[in-house]
C-alpha cells in the first residue's frame, strides 16, 4: 500500500475530493498547512510597519491506497489540482507497511 500526500491550493480541496472519490478512493485525511516555495509570500502593512508573510495557506491531503491505484490517483490529483499558476503544490508517494481499520481491526487492503 502507498500513502499519497499532496499539497494543494485550499480551494481545490472539494474538486480533488470529488475526483478521487469518483475513481474509488474511499478515505482522505486533510490538514491545513502553510507552504513556503517558489510562490513568494506577500508583505502586509500594519500601522506603517512591514510584515512579511512567507508562508501561504495550503491544504495537505493524505490518501492510503492500494499499490495498483497509485498511478491513477496521482494523475487525477495532478489534473484536478492544477491551475497552471505557481504554487499549485506537490504530490509525494511513499510506502505504507501496514494499514489497520480501528473499528474492525481489519488490516491491509481491506482496511483502506
Amino acid at each position, binding site marked *: 500500500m502507498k500513502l499519497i500526500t499532496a499539497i494543494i491550493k485550499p480551494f481545490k480541496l472539494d474538486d480533488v475530493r470529488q475526483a478521487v472519490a469518483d475513481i474509488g478512493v474511499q478515505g482522505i485525511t486533510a490538514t*491545513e498547512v502553510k507552504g513556503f516555495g517558489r510562490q513568494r509570500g506577500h508583505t*502586509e502593512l*500594519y500601522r506603517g510597519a512591514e510584515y512579511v508573510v512567507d508562508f501561504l495557506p495550503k491544504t495537505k491531503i493524505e490518501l492510503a491506497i492500494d499499490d495498483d491505484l497509485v498511478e491513477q490517483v496521482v494523475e487525477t490529483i495532478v489534473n484536478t489540482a492544477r491551475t497552471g499558476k505557481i504554487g499549485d503544490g506537490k504530490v509525494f508517494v511513499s510506502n505504507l507497511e501496514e494499514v489497520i481499520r480501528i473499528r474492525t481491526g481489519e488490516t491491509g487492503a481491506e482496511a483502506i
Partner: protein
Amino acid sequence: MDQITELSYALDTFYFLVCGALVMWMAAGFTMLEAGLVRSKNTAEILTKNMGLYAIACIMYMLTGYGIMYGEGNGVIPQLSDLLLTSADNSAKEVIASGGETYYSNLSDFFFQVVFVATAMSIVSGAVAERMKLWSFFLFAVVLTGFIYPVQGYWKWGGGFLNELGFIDFAGSGVVHMCGAAAALAGVILLGARKGKYTKDGDVKAIPGANLPLATLGTLILWLGWFGFNGGSELKLSDVSEANAVSLIFVNTNAAAAGGLIAALLLARAWFGKADLTMALNGALAGLVAITAEPLTPSPIEATMIGMVGGLLVVPSIVFMDRVFKIDDPVGAISVHGVVGIWGLLAVPLTNTDATVGMQLTGIIVIFAWVFGTSLLVWTVIKLTLGIRVSEQEEYDGSDIHECGLEAYPEFSRTSE
C-alpha cells in the same frame, strides 16, 4: 413662566441628544452585524467600510445634506440652504417669544438627523459586502448621504410634496430603511453575486458568516439604538401627552422586535427544521423596521403583530431573493430594510386613520423610484470609471489583505475557503 419654557426646551433638547446618541450607537450595531456575517477574510474591510461611511455621512450631511433636506424649496426641487453653518441656534428670547413652538435646539436636531443618514448608508454596506471595492463604495456614500437621501428626506420630512400628499412615515421605514435598501439593490444588481455563491447549475451555496456572536451583538445594539430612532422621532417629550407618546413608542418598538424575532424563529424552525439564529436576528430587525413607519398609533398587541408579520415576511424574502432572484445579499439587508420597510409603510393605515393605502403606495413608489434610479446611475458611472468590483484574485484572497493590508484575525487559523 419663561423659566419653565426654558426648562422644557432644555428637556426636549436633552431627550433629542440622548436619542441621537442611541442612533449613533446603531452605527456600531450595523458594523458588528456585518462583521459577523461576512467571512473572516473580508472582515477588516467591512469594518473599514462601516467606520468610513459613518464619517462620510456625518461630513456630507453637514456640508450639503441637512441644507437640502430642511431648506427652502418648492416641495419637489429642494434648495440648498446653509441652515447649519451660518445661522445661530435659537436664542432664549426667540424660544420664549415662540410660546413653545420652538422647543429644542437646532443643533440637537441636526445631531439627531445626521445619525439617521448614517443608518441609511449602513444598510448598503451589508448588501454589497465581500466584493465591492472600498473606495468606490466610499464615493457612492458621498453621493447618497450628501444628495440622494436628503432629497427624498426633503420630500417627506422637510415638508415637501410627499408630506403634503399625506404620506405617513413616522420614523423612516421608507425614508431611511427602504431608501437604504433601494440603493443597495441597485448596487447589488450591478455588482453580481459573490464568487462561489451560485454553482454553475444555479444552486445556492451557503456562505456562512464567520462570527455569529458579533452578529448577535450587532442586533442587540440595533435593538437598543432603535429606541432612540423611533422614540426620538416624536420630537417632543415635555408634557404629559408627549411623554406618554414616547413611552408608547418605546413599548411598541420593543414589542415589535420581540414579535418579529419569535415569528421568524418559529417559521425557520418549521420550514428548515432548525432554529436558525441568523433568521431570528433578521426577524428582530424586521420587527423593528416594520414598526418604524408608525410606532405611535398601534397598541402594544398590535405592534407585536406588525412586528410578527415583519418576521414572517423576512424569512421567505431572504430565501426567495437568494434562490429565485439570485440576489446575493450577505446580510439580508434588502429583505429586512426594503421588503419589510414596505410592509411597515403599508401597515400604517391599519392603525392610523389618517393614512391611506393609496398615499402610502405613492410614497413607496416615489422614494423607491428616486433612490433606485439615482443610485443605479451613480453606481453605473462608478462602475464605468473606477470599477465597483474587486478582481477575482482579490475576492479569492479576501479584501482585507488587498484593500486594507491587514487581517481581521491574523492569528487564528482558519479552514480554507
